[in-house]
């Protein structure tokens, strides 16, 4: 049912884009806040049509990296290129090609949902016919039709998250950068979002996804990067990560824990059980 709904949308297609392998290329990215190094010399890339999972414990540097990719933070070192364009030199074009979904849906409280979509569409110079088609589609998909003329201040957390996801998918960008996509979503909407990611990736959209949910990462992601203390600890598909963690036939949770400090956790679990 959800798949049927999703298929109605005309989305971004590979043939319309430059035939390059990578949509996102990050090289030696570093960001310091005073003496603290939040992101330390990270390099990674995301292929066209790939869902890339970005995992790491709290404070590892995920959001800082994502903000740099979205053009919200200037890196101290390194480079980011989107669709073969340097973010530092051509920020406007790079931002045109990137849709950013933050973890906390701060929106303009005194606009209605529909006005917010119009505002975003204008910022990204979306064609009127695409706007008409996509807003109708996504508002219906996320059950927001009846709420579109209400002020955002009356929306619940989940409705805000759905509105912001709609606003980005409406733009049909080649790269979508998502920070914790499922926060506040009900199971139905969560499922819709997962299916959206899959279907858009199948049509060539690249998705850079940061999440704490290992189930989501395991289900959706083609490749995964694990960041720890600002550095990339491991990178690759599930098999590559198994090798890196020196584990066999393990799920992502075991691999993640192994790569990010499982010994510590085992001690904590033992202490809790004995308490």
């Amino acid at each position, binding site marked *: 049912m959800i798949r049927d709904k999703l298929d109605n949308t005309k989305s971004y297609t590979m043939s319309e884009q430059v035939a390059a392998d990578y949509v996102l290329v990050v090289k030696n990215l570093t960001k310091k806040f005073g003496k603290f190094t939040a992101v330390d010399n990270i390099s990674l890339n995301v292929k066209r049509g790939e869902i890339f999972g970005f995992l790491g414990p709290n404070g590892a540097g995920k959001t800082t990296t994502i903000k740099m990719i979205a*053009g919200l933070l200037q890196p101290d070192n390194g480079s980011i290129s989107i669709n073969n364009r340097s973010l530092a030199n051509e920020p*406007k074009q790079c931002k045109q090609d990137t849709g950013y979904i*933050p973890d906390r849906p701060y929106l*303009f409280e005194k606009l209605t949902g529909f006005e917010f979509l119009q505002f975003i569409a204008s910022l990204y110079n979306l064609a009127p016919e695409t706007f*008409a088609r996509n807003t109708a589609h996504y508002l219906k998909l996320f059950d927001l039709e009846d709420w579109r003329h209400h002020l955002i201040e009356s929306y619940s957390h989940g409705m805000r998250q759905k509105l912001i996801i709609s606003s980005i998918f409406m733009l049909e960008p080649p790269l979508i950068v998502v920070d914790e996509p499922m926060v506040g979503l009900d199971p139905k909407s969560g499922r819709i979002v997962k299916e959206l990611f899959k279907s858009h990736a199948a049509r060539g959209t690249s998705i850079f996804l940061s999440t704490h949910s290992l189930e989501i990462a395991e289900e959706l992601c083609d490749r995964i990067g694990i960041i720890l203390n600002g550095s990339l600890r491991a990178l690759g598909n599930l098999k590559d990560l198994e090798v890196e963690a020196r584990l066999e036939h393990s799920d992502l949770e075991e691999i993640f824990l192994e790569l990010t400090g499982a010994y510590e956790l085992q001690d904590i679990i033992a202490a809790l059980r004995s308490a």
Partner: protein
Amino acid sequence: MAMDLSKKKTLLQPFLFSAKNRFFPENRLPFRTLGVLVFSLAVCLVLYKISVRVVTYFHSQNELGIILSLKIFQMAWITMFALLVFSCMVSAVSTLFLSQDNEIIFAAPVAKSDIFFMRYITTSIYTSWMMIVFSIPVFAAYGTVFKAAVFYWPLMLVSIIATAATATTFGIGLTVVLVNLFPAKRTKDIILYLSICFGIFIYLIFRLMRPEDLVNPDKYGHFIDYLSSLATPAAPYLPAAWASNLLSYYLMDREIDFLVTALLIITPIAFFFIGEWAMERWFLSGFTKSQESFGGYRKFFSRGKYRRSSLRWIFLKESKLFLRDSAEWSQLFMIAALVVVYLYNFKVLPVERSLFEEEYVTNLISFLNIGLTGFVVASLAARFVYPSIGAEGGSFYIIMASPLSTERYILYKYIFYIVPFTALALVLLVVSNRLLNIEGPMWWISVITGLIITWTVLAMALGFGAIYADFKAENRAAALGGIGAILFLFSAIAFEMAIIFLGVSPVYRLMRSWLRLGIMGANDLLTLSAWILASLAISLILALFFIRTGIRRLEESST
């Protein structure tokens, strides 16, 4: 009882610790706190000096001077009391019903009376500290001018604190009852409208009653008219009038009315217990209502079709956010009152009584009016334009992540604000020139220079707003207390004064020859043009410098 006290102390901890961390940060010398302290003391001293001069002036006029100065004393107390009640009510709606920490506190096992105590203490301090600090020098001036005995000072302090406590206990208690009748947001709107109307009323009354005429009984046809104009209501049921009566009585007869003193001290305590009772009785239903509706269930249909234009949508966004926020648009009433009083002042200027020729005086006033207009524009820009970037709040990432460049975003904002501010400046300049019968070169000088100043001040407001953008400020008004707003105001006023001072000589020379001979000499025209060009150059440099610095700061900062 001991249990209750410990809960009360615990509930006050976040407030106390935040204040400690803010004013006395660890491992750092509290330079900022010392700076604020020195600045406040300086303001108090200036206020005291001005108050002493004003009171001395009234006091020394004629036999009615003492009555008149005590009447003003009473009006000052009543105004202070009313302002405190309104500001406390506005704050109380937020702290009691809309505060972000409510869920943690109300979910905890604490009695409503403890919560009331904590909210009462914090709200009272937030709303009344400034009024208390700055009213002390004003009322102290009366002690100095009337050569009061030593008991005046403690009596004055007790009266100020007791009146402030009465106002805040009354305000909070009334808020608890009101929120039970209307949802919290609606109550806040109602109180806001009422307080703005009250502010406008006081402002207009003070100005339109022409206080300068009160010391000039000759202006009145009959002595009786004069006396009746002094006979403002004594308001014996208002706690503020008790304080003024108590102190007036002491100033005149050096005796303390113990009945009134007791009344002053007992009233806030009584109001506190009534408020606590109201909290027990009505708080939960009010808090429930405040969560049920935020006034957002109204529908707003977009009539216009979607069109690709980021300029259009930045305009639409700004205007919709302004017009849908009652805290913002209701300020327009205040601006309207400001404009009316501003222009009224020109209407009643006694230029005909001047020692110099009327035409010289009116032209001089028209020239100085450029600076006055600039001052009004700067203060309104500090209120509306300076906080406009920080007001994007958490949503600012939307702008920064979009392909709209920061330069263009600032430019669109500038265009958005330039229209109403140009209209305002033109109204102030053109109408006051009309009231002063200004024609010829002075008219053009005042309009052109006024517009240059207006446009530059707007650019500076946006620049400073970008440099010191506070994306976490609760609302636009909150940003006004920041260092950036103060720096902006100082810089804008310094810029205006520089332009005016530079223009004194060329304008004087040109106008002298114009008024005497009806001609403009070539040299005079040349120096005037040089001044206007220099003003333009300074304006452009300042505007570009602050805007560019602001853009750089925004692009560097994390959102």
